């Protein structure tokens, strides 16, 4: 789960990472009041879960509360690169002497964490790594030992002398934030040395491991602050793994890998998938029914492909679920169904006996994908 900047900074504040004074606003008027309190000269920053705000017009540096209000009004009404914006962060403008970069993230192939400190910050770190690799220092952080003091000293050792102490303290605290909150990424870009000699976190990017959210109910409750597609919300409530895509063939399958493969095969057949939907293992008739309802509620769907390979999942139960769903919703599109694996003959028999005008049975994954693609084009 990717936190908004201000939510990340709230975690930072708890761990004593120095920040610039500021508050979050949900309206332009509120942004104006915050700017007044901070003395007028402020930065107004969109709160979104995607990057590229600096270049993309998501940050406005303004000189008065009126300008802060106008900037906030624009951001809240226009959104940011297609993402809805419901809040902005208003922070006091500071006098920056130098910008650096610091991050600790999961290094999945090493099964450990990686701390990176760059003497150049405020820009795309991948670009710095490519063009001036000598600006970066990397340290492998053992997940059992944590970040050790000598590693911190080394990581900040190439920064200007006056920035080292402050940066070292921040890096150590970033690791606390990571370890205590099950984060997979804690990033500060830029980490700034101010004209008054203080080192502060000007930004905060924090990603929390979804699998660990049960250990952090307060963080999990922040989920309600993120904009979510209504269909995605419905799917999540039903415990389904659903991702909206921009095509026209609705997809239901069991198991993440098989569903991904199904999307690919549909695209090879010349159509575009409308979604990723994994019903998981051992799907009940009810889960199948809700899945179909979710898919059919998406207006861009022109045909549906149900691709099930039963392992734990029983195909007869899947077939019953499809029929149940069709009693609850009247589909405007054809539903191609491919069943294989556990109890597949029983499942196929149930569908054959129902002889429903909207169900199109197919024998193999490939044939089913081709059929669904044809139906989507014809619809």
């Amino acid at each position, binding site marked *: 789960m990717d936190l908004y900047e201000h939510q990340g900074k709230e975690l930072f504040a708890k761990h004593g990472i120095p920040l610039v004074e500021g508050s979050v606003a949900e309206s332009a008027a509120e942004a104006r009041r915050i700017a007044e309190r901070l003395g007028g000269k402020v930065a107004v920053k969109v709160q979104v879960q995607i990057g590229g705000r600096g270049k993309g017009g998501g940050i406005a540096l303004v000189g008065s509360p009126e300008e802060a209000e106008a900037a906030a009004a624009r951001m809240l009404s226009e959104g940011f690169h297609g993402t809805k914006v419901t809040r902005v962060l208003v922070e006091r403008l500071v006098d920056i002497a130098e910008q650096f970069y610091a991050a600790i993230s999961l290094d999945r192939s090493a*099964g450990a964490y990686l701390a990176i400190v760059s003497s150049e910050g405020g820009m795309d770190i991948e670009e710095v790594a490519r063009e001036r690799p000598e600006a970066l220092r990397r340290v492998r952080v053992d997940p059992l030992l944590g970040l050790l003091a000598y590693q911190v000293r080394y990581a900040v050792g190439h920064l200007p002398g006056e920035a080292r102490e402050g940066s070292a303290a921040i890096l150590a605290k970033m690791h606390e934030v990571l370890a205590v909150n099950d984060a997979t990424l804690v990033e500060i870009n830029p980490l700034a040395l101010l004209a008054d000699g203080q080192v502060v976190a000007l930004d905060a990017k924090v990603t929390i*491991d979804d*699998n660990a959210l049960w250990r952090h109910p307060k963080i999990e409750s922040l989920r309600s602050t993120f904009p979510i597609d209504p269909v995605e919300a419905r799917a999540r409530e039903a415990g389904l793994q659903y991702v909206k895509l921009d095509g026209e063939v609705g997809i239901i399958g069991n198991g993440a890998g098989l569903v991904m493969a199904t*999307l*690919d095969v549909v695209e090879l057949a010349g159509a575009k998938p409308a979604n990723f939907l994994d019903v998981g293992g051992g799907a009940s008739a009810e889960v199948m029914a809700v899945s179909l309802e979710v898919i059919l509620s998406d207006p861009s769907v022109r045909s549906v492909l149900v691709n099930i390979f039963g392992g734990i999942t029983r195909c007869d139960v899947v077939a019953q679920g499809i029929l149940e769903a069709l009693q609850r919703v009247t589909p405007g599109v054809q539903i191609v169904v491919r069943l294989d*694996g556990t109890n597949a003959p029983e499942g196929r028999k149930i569908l054959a006996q129902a002889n429903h005008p909207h169900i199109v049975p197919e024998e193999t994954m490939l044939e089913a994908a081709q059929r669904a693609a044809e139906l989507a084009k014809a619809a």
Partner: protein
Amino acid sequence: MAILVDETTRVVVQGLTGREGRFHGLRNRAYGTKVVAGVTPGKSGQNVEGIPVFDTVAEAVAETGANTSLIFVPPRFAAEAVYEAADSELRLIVCITEGIPVRDMAQVTGYLRGKPSTLVGPNCPGVISPGKSNVGIIPGEICMAGRVGLVSRSGTLTYQIVHELTQRGVGQSTCVGMGGDPVHGIGFIGCLELFDQDPETGLVVLIGEIGGDDEERAATFIVERMRKPVVGYIAGFTAPPGKRMGHAGAIVTGSSGTAQAKAEALEAAGVKVGRTPTEAAELVEGALA
């Protein structure tokens, strides 16, 4: 021979008395696997259809000679279950549990380094050597004994490809589901190494998906060390960046981890990569002909 599991495998199921543990433990036994013990704290002295249950893995091993663990423990207790199995020096630990925090897994894999136990998973379907032993949840009836080794990050996608192989009369030596989590036990390289040394395996199928760089590193290994032919399949060509596609590990971040890059890396290593599961099975059939 085969790899990881065979006739000498003796399984202790951690979480045998739970719904999943019971169902699959008994299913594995019905397949012919030697399921010799179960572990559930507080339930020692009980049995599940004749399989004795113990409080700890150490006691189960002492009483039954178990050498392999199969874990069906809920995510919040699963990491400790792996530590417990490792401390009894079981040769193989297969962890089916989905949803374990990645920090727990990073600590577990760090702890296992240098220890005699091999971990498969977590969030995986397990390991089957058809006709010999099935440790996990792979449906035994879709498999057939033969000479193709198979290693995969996925579950049902593996079944799909195994099914297509079996329907073509192409049997398997061992199928390994290594799991879809970002930090996991044995990976492609570990499995490729074992398959390369296994006299019963003639060809290996590698099934990857978006996220991480396991496939790219496997490609390097294949170029440098692998003697046997490899056929590949990668899922997720249509996956958009930044969206987690079900598996915790299946996410394209920036430009890294794409299916395209993985397929290209494998092809550059001389691996034939099928664009559909069916095509992958056809490539295997062709390579064996």
